[in-house]
């Protein structure tokens, strides 16, 4: 046995035990796995609370009150969030829950705006721009072939894949004038093509996720092997 068992050594043993407990799920759901996941949820939730306190509540609410006393409450940037937090607490009781709807409305309003703004500026515009840039050989975001013919073929595949995948997501019905038979047939072909492209995209993502998971599995076995070697070496 090592002369002085360090905290790190105990930590490694605990880590190894937790790893074995989680990996035991491979033989089916069992109490060891449940113990490990409940510990995980407890630590993760406690850590999230500590981060929320240390990064947001303490510097923005507690510290200004401690520093400036109650006079600090004259600052609207402190007073309004404080009132909203108190109103949020009303949500805890079904009787007063209605009063807690105002802070929830503020949260949802800001959240919805951030989602819409983020979707437009973070996805719709950059992705459309990337699709347009791929038409121009020198500015294409990825290498789409050395020869012009190769480039054109790849751009056509890119455009067809993007458009057909989008068409696949079109679930609303078309106006009667447009839903004539030839138009419907073209849309049906596009939808089927879109499903193929989506299957390819998911297949590539599946392979990526599988590779990452295999690396994690190998790392865990390497870690367990290292612990066993250390333990055997210490005797």
């Amino acid at each position, binding site marked *: 046995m090592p002369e002085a068992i360090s905290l790190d050594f105990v930590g490694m043993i*605990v*880590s190894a035990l*937790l*790893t074995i407990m*989680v*990996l035991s799920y*491979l033989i089916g759901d069992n109490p060891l796995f*449940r*113990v490990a996941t409940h*510990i*995980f*949820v*407890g630590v993760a*939730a*406690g*850590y999230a*609370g*500590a981060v*929320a*306190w*240390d990064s*947001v509540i303490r510097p923005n609410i507690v510290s200004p009150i401690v520093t400036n006393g109650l006079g600090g409450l004259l600052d609207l940037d402190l007073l*309004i*969030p404080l009132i*909203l937090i108190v109103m949020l607490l009303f949500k*805890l009781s079904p009787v007063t*829950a209605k009063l807690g709807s105002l802070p929830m*409305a*503020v*949260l949802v*309003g800001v*959240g*919805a*705006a951030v*989602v*819409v703004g*983020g979707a*437009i*500026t973070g*996805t*719709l515009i950059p*992705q459309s721009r990337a699709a347009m840039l791929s038409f121009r050989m020198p500015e294409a975001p990825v290498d789409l072939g050395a020869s012009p013919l190769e480039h054109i073929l790849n751009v056509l595949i890119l*455009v*067809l*894949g*993007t458009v057909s*995948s989008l068409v696949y997501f079109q679930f609303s019905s078309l106006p009667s004038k447009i839903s004539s038979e030839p138009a419907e047939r073209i849309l049906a072909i596009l939808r089927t093509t879109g499903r193929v492209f989506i*299957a*390819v*995209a998911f*297949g*590539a*993502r*599946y*392979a990526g*996720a*599988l590779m990452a*998971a*295999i690396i994690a599995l190998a790392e*865990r076995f390497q870690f367990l092997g290292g612990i066993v070697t250390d333990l055997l070496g210490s005797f």
Partner: protein
Amino acid sequence: MKIGTYIIWAAAAVVVGIVVLLGYFIEQPLILETRASLMHWAVILAAAAVFMGLLNLLLVHWSKISTQTKGWGYSALLIVFLLETLVLGLIFGPDHNLVLLLFTYLQLPVEISLMAILAVVLVVAGYRLILRRRDMLSMVFMGTALVVLLGTLPWVVSGEGAIIRTLGEMRAWITQVWAVAGARGILLGVALGATTTGLRVLLGADRPYGD
């Protein structure tokens, strides 16, 4: 009474949301300042909501312990570790060595092990897919996955032979053109869906904050 309160909450959500949204596209000092304040309040509220979530989690598991529901021992374990991490985090801060020890030796190994289990789960799911659904899309899905997996193997990446080179090129072509095309369509579809859902909230058509 019901109509009155509903209008107040909806008006608050709409006004706040529109000001924040305008801040993305209009660089006017008043709008930008108001938007910054609203975002600041929302961040503080979200942090307070985290604590309400923790309180709710504690209450749910405490009721399991007090009623001795099946599996109450797990709930007790969860509460002990939650309070231990939270109290240490509140006293010393989340960057303190003691809290980092809990993170490194309890949370991290479970996270990586769950990720490791995913390898087996994904292989089993893929095998079942091939076994139960032998249609064109399943074949395209698994065929793509197989080519990408084989093309990423170290001996393919650093290999010299003609077959190995072709496999590597096929992998690159699939991931850089075919998969990008499908993923771009999915991303645009998701973004359009998110925009629609967000606009429904901003127009007051959806009111997830309650009436």
